């Protein structure tokens, strides 16, 4: 079976929310596209085609090649004047093994319980209006053909795969599905081993003073700060990187990522996205110009990331030039004395899925001046530096995650910056996941230079100790 996600048609109501392209609109702090790909993985779909429109870069950056979900994603752009239904009909021979097609903002709700007797009732499923296909599911080529020709369809859910497509056709529906999640449906989507028994789900790196009052049910993302005497909940979804100032009360509302909520405010029945205040009842949008009321708390990082990348690339070039001659002298000696060698290991790569990195392995546990010098000058990272100069690694960032040992960690990282140097190089108590999330949150040129200097100093003074 294959899946096609058609994201080329803009959704005006999603533009009102602002911030991200509609396939990346978060439901309970996870993008819609994340749920789609997760469903694909669960029902055995391995090949996914994403047809891109506005915000293509962001969609592609988020989903990558699909390895996070165990699927293979191909991207294409919609042709002018071609409707998705026409495209599916024209390529109908590709759907012999079945098709899952999503062409609008559907949230794939998981059924909590199902009756096995219902399995045989539905063979296929089709949603659409005005001659347009929005959702289509057929297990076989014949079913898909029939559905494409307007044959037997059904307005009912997909009992076979325990999924109910919930169409988000406007801001009230978007708010509704988020509230359904916070009221209890989130339990169906949490990773095995986690639970939100008391109705609260709180992410990493969330600071709450003792006087802040959290009232479940609530969902809080990563990297959030709450002011003193603030009241969060009940029925609140707070996205990643949100700051709620003191004395503010939130209830029955959705605060999207990167939002600041000022002091002494009361947010009820609303969506707040940056400086946009949106009524959950009718979608009325107010852009607040007073940054002390509500505001976007994070500028666009792309420019800053690019500047940082260029400066660090130049630094890496300098380090590589300095290390080149010592490496050419010391590494042959290290090999000759059989103290250690480089071995290729498989790591996750944000662009290509996987990457072979040469990792220095110590073969003999014996004291050696050559080995100490080799480590003190951080020459074991020289090949990685060369890869950083080729653009395959970042100079400073998160530690590269091994495949398959750290597959689980990768799924929990919204941003992955595999780098030559990381906190793990100088911090003994480094937790890879927490540090990686923290780095993605506060990455800056200052932080990168700090990592670089500390890594070299730590290694220089502790060379040969391990």
């Amino acid at each position, binding site marked *: 079976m294959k899946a096609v996600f058609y994201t080329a048609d803009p959704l005006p109501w999603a533009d009102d929310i602002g911030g991200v392209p509609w396939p990346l609109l978060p439901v309970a702090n996870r993008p819609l596209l994340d749920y789609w790909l997760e469903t694909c993985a669960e029902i055995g779909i391995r090949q996914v085609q994403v047809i891109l429109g506005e915000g293509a870069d962001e969609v592609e950056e988020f989903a990558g090649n699909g390895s996070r979900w165990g699927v293979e994603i191909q991207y294409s752009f919609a042709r002018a004047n071609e409707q998705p239904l026409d495209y599916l009909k024209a390529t109908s021979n590709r759907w012999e093994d079945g098709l899952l097609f999503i062409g609008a903002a559907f949230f794939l709700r998981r059924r909590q319980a199902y009756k096995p007797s219902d399995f045989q009732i539905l063979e296929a499923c089709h949603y659409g209006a005005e001659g347009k296909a929005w959702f289509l599911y057929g297990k076989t080529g014949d079913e898909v053909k029939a559905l494409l020709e307007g044959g037997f369809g059904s307005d009912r859910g997909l009992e076979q795969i325990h999924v109910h497509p919930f169409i988000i056709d406007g801001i009230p529906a978007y708010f509704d599905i988020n509230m359904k999640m916070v009221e209890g449906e989130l339990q169906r989507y949490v990773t095995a081993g986690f639970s939100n028994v008391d109705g609260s789900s709180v992410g990493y790196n969330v600071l709450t003073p003792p006087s802040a009052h959290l009232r479940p049910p609530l969902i809080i993302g990563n990297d959030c700060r709450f002011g003193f005497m603030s009241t969060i909940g009940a029925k609140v979804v707070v996205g990643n990187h949100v700051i709620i100032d003191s004395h503010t009360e939130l209830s029955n509302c959705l605060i999207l990522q990167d939002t600041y909520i000022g002091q*002494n405010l009361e947010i009820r029945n609303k969506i707040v996205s940056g400086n946009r*205040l949106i009524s959950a009842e009718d979608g*009325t949008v107010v852009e*607040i*110009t*007073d940054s*002390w009321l*509500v505001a976007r708390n994070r500028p666009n990082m792309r420019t800053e990331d690019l500047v940082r990348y260029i400066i660090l690339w130049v630094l890496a070039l300098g380090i590589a030039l300095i290390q080149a001659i010592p490496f050419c002298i010391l590494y042959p000696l290290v090999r000759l004395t059989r103290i250690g060698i480089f071995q290729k290991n498989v790591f996750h790569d944000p662009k290509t899925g996987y990457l072979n990195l040469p990792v220095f392995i110590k073969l003999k546990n014996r004291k050696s001046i050559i080995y100490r010098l080799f480590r003190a000058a951080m020459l074991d990272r020289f090949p990685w530096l060369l890869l950083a100069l080729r653009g395959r690694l970042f100079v400073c960032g998160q530690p590269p995650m091994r495949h398959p040992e750290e597959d689980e960690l990768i799924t929990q990282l919204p941003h992955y910056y595999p780098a030559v140097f990381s906190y793990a190089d100088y911090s003994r108590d480094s937790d890879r996941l927490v540090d990686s999330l923290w780095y993605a949150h506060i990455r800056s040129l200052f932080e990168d230079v700090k990592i670089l200097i500390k890594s070299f100093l730590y290694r220089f003074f502790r060379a040969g100790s391990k």
Partner: protein
Amino acid sequence: MIVACSKDQGIGVIRVSNALSAATVDTFREQLASWQAVEVNVKNYVIDLKQVDFMDSAGLGTLIAVLKRITERGGDLKIACLQKKPRMVFEITRAYKVFEIYDTVDEALKMFK
């Protein structure tokens, strides 16, 4: 003119015909003050915000200052015809707890009787 003032049953009715924001509050304050200087006997006021489709914290702050000044003189101020967008600002800032808000000017006028 962003303020049109009139007297109805001895109550001042202030019709605002523009967004109440940092750019317009000074004009609003001046025009209201000059009318109040002429109509010294008017104690109670209704502000008609039917044509105000946007209000920021400066506008809200000005309304609160006007309310304070009027109540200090023993009068009262009520708000009528609050539109959807300014209403949302009133809601998040808890200003609805400070002002009495009515759907129409007539309703607000009746409440003074």
